């Protein structure tokens, strides 16, 4: 990537819509150098921020230590990091990745395609951006509406335990 030293500070925020409650334990991020250097902010760590639905308030912020997963197309890298203590209810949030000179490749519209430029750590929008930032959240889904395979296993387990207890009790009563 090419560029000059920044004249202003910016923090792109991307919309995150969750249909289930989740516990986030890690993330993967597509990033890369901005100034043509082999080193860049991504491998030195960055601040991972979650804002509320209208990006007026930071509800989670954590400094993420990262490792390189793979070097990918067009001088970009995929890096990963661990996240601790983050549980989100289903709903809408805005997500930011911030460090001094952290390159964030702009992908063509993905899952939601909503991206804005903001003043760092304030959520104050400067202007909308095109495309989307490439990232993944890793963790567990903690509430899934409707029946699932896991829920079926739990129901079966409870039914089997109850049946076993009931049969033993009946056998004792008959003896």
């Amino acid at each position: 990537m090419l560029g000059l030293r920044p004249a202003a500070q910016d923090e792109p925020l991307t919309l995150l819509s969750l249909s289930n409650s989740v516990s986030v334990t890690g993330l993967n991020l597509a990033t890369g150098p901005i100034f043509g250097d082999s080193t860049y902010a991504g491998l030195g760590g960055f601040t991972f921020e979650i804002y509320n639905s209208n990006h007026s308030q930071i509800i989670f912020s954590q400094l993420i230590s990262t490792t390189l997963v793979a070097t990918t197309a067009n001088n970009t890298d995929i890096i990963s990091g661990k996240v601790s203590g983050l549980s989100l209810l289903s709903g809408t949030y805005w997500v930011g990745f911030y460090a001094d000179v952290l390159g964030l490749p702009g992908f063509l519209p993905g899952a939601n395609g909503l991206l804005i430029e903001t003043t760092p750590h304030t959520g104050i929008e400067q202007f909308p951006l095109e495309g989307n930032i490439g990232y993944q959240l890793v963790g567990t889904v903690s509430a899934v509406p409707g029946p699932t395979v896991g829920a079926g296993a739990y129901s079966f387990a409870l039914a089997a335990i109850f049946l076993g207890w009931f049969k033993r009790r009946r056998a004792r009563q008959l003896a």
Partner: protein
Amino acid sequence: MRARFLATLAGIAILIGISRANADTAIYSSIPDLSAFSWNNAYCSDCVPRRRMNL
């Protein structure tokens, strides 16, 4: 005997449920493939946005 068998089955079912619940997987992706960057725009935190990338 039958009760023991059922209890064993119950234990297995619980273990399957626990392992499914605790498995860490990708729960959200903003784009389908992180490795497939092809658009020549890049954004930047703490610098002027929309840098042209060196393709």
